């Protein structure tokens, strides 16, 4: 692996060592990389790609059915970003701006509509059978936090989360991805996906609840 997540650049970088005084890519802000990019520095672009491409690919995969199409969408997005560089004013973060372009591109491929027919998902987020007639827990949440924090290898846990995220309905996944994985603000999520605050909150609620349930099923104790 050449780079870890969350902006830390690690081992195996095939590029030549940097000149002295040059900062590591992880240390440069997006603003600094943009400045270098605007000054015609190819390395500035590659560093931006290193930082954001993985997240963009993951988001694209949420919209289109195949990896090949997702990679195309991501490449289109980078090209659109380069061409629109002059128009980027820094009102939103660079990441939010890139995601907004990406979602527009992904949606215009029109593939998703064919793939996912909207499914009414309006029931309670926790199965009604888990509550008694008085609305209190009859089958309370099984404990699993300790399991997740102490007994499971972080890499395995991360892999599990990745798999579980994929099982969410697309619209819930997009919101959870942007909000909880990419850690955008709710305002930015609304902007990227062009949805209302209320809609965002409903999708987030359903997505998180499903994810929690899936974690409980995977990691929880006694069988129900």
């Amino acid at each position, binding site marked *: 692996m050449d780079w870890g997540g969350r902006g830390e650049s690690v081992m195996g970088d095939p590029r030549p060592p940097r000149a002295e005084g040059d900062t590591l890519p992880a240390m440069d802000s997006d603003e600094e990389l943009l400045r270098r990019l605007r000054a015609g520095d*190819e390395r500035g672009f590659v560093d931006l790609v290193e930082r954001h491409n*993985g997240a963009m690919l993951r988001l694209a995969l949420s919209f289109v059915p195949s990896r090949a199409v997702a990679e195309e969408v991501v490449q289109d997005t980078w090209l659109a970003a380069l061409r629109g560089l002059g128009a980027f004013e820094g009102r939103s973060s660079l990441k939010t701006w890139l995601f907004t372009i990406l979602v527009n591109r992904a949606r215009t491929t029109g593939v998703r509509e064919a793939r996912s027919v909207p499914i009414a998902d309006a029931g309670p987020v926790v199965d009604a059978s888990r509550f008694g007639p008085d609305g209190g827990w009859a089958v309370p949440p099984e404990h699993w936090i300790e399991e997740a924090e102490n007994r499971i290898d972080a890499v395995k846990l991360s892999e599990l989360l990745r798999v579980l995220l994929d099982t969410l309905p697309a619209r819930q996944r997009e919101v959870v991805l942007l909000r909880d*994985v990419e850690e955008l603000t709710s305002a930015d999520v609304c902007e990227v996906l062009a949805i209302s605050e209320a809609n965002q909150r409903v999708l987030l609620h359903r997505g998180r609840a499903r994810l929690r349930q899936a974690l409980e099923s995977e990691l929880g104790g006694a069988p129900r």
Partner: protein
Amino acid sequence: MRIRFPRLRARSRQPELVCQQVVELVTDYLEGALSDADRQRFDRHLAGCPHCTEYLAQMRETIRLAGRVAPEDLTPAMRTDLTDLYRRWQAEG
């Protein structure tokens, strides 16, 4: 024959939340989207309900775990493709 109970709470505050309602309000609670009155009802419920407290803790843990899912690495092929793309863009003038 139906027995009607007197409405003991009719003039006091809103009825307390039950667990099944609490789980539906968790996101609004975490997002700070509840009214003051509802947030207080939520907190009052939590104070007396270990299961809902656990549920809320699991929700926070779910969010925390999601935040640790790293994006996949940039493959050499992608890096090459994107470097080419950059050079084509530069050539556009």
